[in-house]
């Protein structure tokens, strides 16, 4: 069997490889190439060198969006992970109906971003109407609206990952600690946290990259209003690409920088949290 697999490896791997090339490698390389060109449609491009990157950096909207995104990411990553972890702790205790609660908390994750954005727009506007304001009245409403939305959507998912991690903590160690007289706070800090480090790595990775790349929810909830003050990076890139003739290349350049940024942040994060993981 093993030999067979070796023999036919190339043949079997080929379809997947082709799919990967067509759906990922080609668009990716083409995307990088296009960021150095001026084009209307992707098939007719004219080389302009670094021009697009210069324009992108000169664009105040881009830097504003970067700052807004960074703030959003910090707030939502912290809140999502803390809340998800607490929920996971709660739902691994022997409480009646944990399964029902797990399912309910997980469900928001099954709804698409655009739909979620519009639902929350209705909810938040419904409340703000009482005070004669709307989501667009002040950028801070949009900011916190996005944070709430993102929490609501991602907490359930992260919770499931944390639950899996917590359930993997060996019962013997917990019992031994208890017999040695460790308080539940100590158990949490010295035993559970170090042992769920792999889950934390994954959850941080998912929340950071998702918050940074947020697009649908941003578009549906505020679309950047008022005056682009709640525009996140992905939306800014989209707007650059489509709302100005001749700026397609600049949008592309922004997208390439965006990719490098996200990749860098995530790699650093993975490096840091990986080091803290211990072999179980």
């Amino acid at each position, binding site marked *: 069997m093993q030999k067979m697999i070796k023999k036919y490896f190339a043949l*079997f791997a*080929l*379809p997947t490889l082709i799919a990967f090339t067509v759906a990922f490698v080609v668009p990716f390389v083409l995307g990088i190439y296009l960021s150095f060109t001026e084009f*209307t449609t992707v098939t007719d491009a004219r080389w302009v060198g670094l021009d697009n990157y210069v324009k992108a950096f000169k664009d105040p909207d881009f830097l504003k969006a970067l700052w807004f995104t960074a703030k959003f990411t910090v707030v939502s990553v912290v809140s999502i992970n803390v809340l998800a972890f607490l929920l996971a702790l709660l739902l691994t205790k022997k409480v009646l109906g944990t399964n029902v609660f797990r399912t309910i908390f997980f469900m928001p994750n099954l709804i698409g971003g655009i739909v979620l954005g519009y639902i929350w727009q209705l909810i938040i506007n419904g409340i703000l109407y009482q005070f004669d304001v*709307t989501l*667009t009245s002040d950028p801070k409403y949009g900011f916190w609206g996005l944070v709430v939305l993102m929490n609501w959507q991602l907490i359930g998912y992260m919770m499931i990952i944390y639950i899996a991690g917590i359930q993997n903590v060996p019962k013997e160690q917990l019992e031994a600690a208890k017999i040695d007289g460790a308080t539940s706070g100590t158990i949490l800090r010295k035993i559970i946290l170090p042992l769920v480090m792999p889950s934390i790595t994954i959850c941080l990775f998912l929340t950071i990259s998702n918050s940074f790349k947020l697009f649908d929810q941003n578009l549906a909830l505020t679309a950047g209003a008022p*005056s682009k003050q709640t525009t996140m990076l992905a939306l800014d890139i989209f707007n650059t690409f*489509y*709302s100005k003739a001749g700026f397609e290349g600049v949008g592309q350049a922004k997208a390439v920088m965006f990719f490098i940024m996200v990749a860098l942040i995530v790699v650093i994060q993975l490096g840091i949290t990986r080091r803290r993981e211990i072999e179980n």
Partner: protein
Amino acid sequence: MKKFNRVLSLLLVASLVFIAACGNNNDKNGGSTSSGGAESIYFLNFKPEIATVYEQIAKDYEAETGVKVKVVTAAAGTYETRLKSEMAKSEAPTIFQINGPIGYNAWKDYTLDLKDTKLYSYLSDPSLAVTDGDGVYGIPYVVEGYGIIYNNAIMENYFALPNKATGVSSMEEVNNFDTLKAVVEDMQANADALGIKGVFASTSLSAGEQWRWQTHLANIPLFYEFNDIGGYDSTVLAGLEADEIKFTYGNNFKNIFDLYINNSTVKPTLLGSKSVADSMAEFALGQAAMVQNGNWAWNQIAEVGGNVVNQEDIKFLPIYTGVAGEETQGLAIGTENYLAINSKASEAKQQASVAFLEWLFSSDKGKAYVTNDLGFIAPFNTFTDEEKPADPLAAEVMEWMNKDTTAVVWTFAAFPSEDFKNDFGDALLEYAQGSKTWEEVSAVVVESWKNEKAK
């Protein structure tokens, strides 16, 4: 391990089958389109509200001539997005739409010169076309008009009010901003007696719903500003040449905009959540007496369930802003819909595309579709006076065209970019919400024009 291997090989085989299936599919598609050759053309439609009519037309045309017309409609507000991706395909649209000189600039590598076509010769006023040097690259296919749409039934109720504070007793007398303001403010004060929530339907300012203000209303002051610059054939040309604007008539814009937002169905601070559809629904349900929009809005009014507005009560009023001599100002009439032919399509397809358009705008069958189903006021000399659309707003537009008034030219064809309009709209939203003063709005408009022109 053995089990894992089995699963793995199963997966790989499955993906192989999947890929093969995809490949097959592609072949099929490729086969049918390439064998179609010149016998198939592709029209990317701009107007979602009449998409089904176009499909019917395509079916009829194919039955008559054997040429297959593929009609694809872009969802509202996504035409440029759609066009960009469709144009990159090997089966690109052969007929598409540009929105005037600025749109032509973005697509000039793709537009065919149409000066020798019959279609161009059909134009009742050839100067309407988008031209560049000797070439003709965009043919307008519909003339539209916008202004303040009002419900005459509510106006009659107002004129009959015993305690009205103005001396105005018919809409004929409303021919300048001051009169309009007096009437509107008095109506707002008597809103309960008139059974309305507000005089104007909500001024929709949510994202993507601002075009009635940052494009159409913005057109009025800039039309006057460019009109003051001498030496150009039209305000559009003057606007295209202007690297900077002064927004001289900005206060006139403020006049009417203030009137809209302060005498409305909703408070100004809530406008950020309102859409055009909300606004048209308020008008159709009789909650508002007036709404700024164009003749294309008739469908939207007619389709609202529980519509209480009678067809014969719907009338147009020009947008008065307090400019001297505006008593003779008419509706804003023009077009932003120009048909272009893809110059990168094959010669045969180009011919077939032109033939289709000529059929649509000159054969009896085609013209019947245009007048009755598409509801276009077509700017072609192939249409007789009887062949005009019957909906009340289109009829009103034609009536205003024949009145002794000067139409406001659609000068927004000269606006530098979508970004300029969006900056304008965003500033208006902040003004309505009270977070920007009018001076700041003016500054944004002037600044944004300059920046967008410099790019």
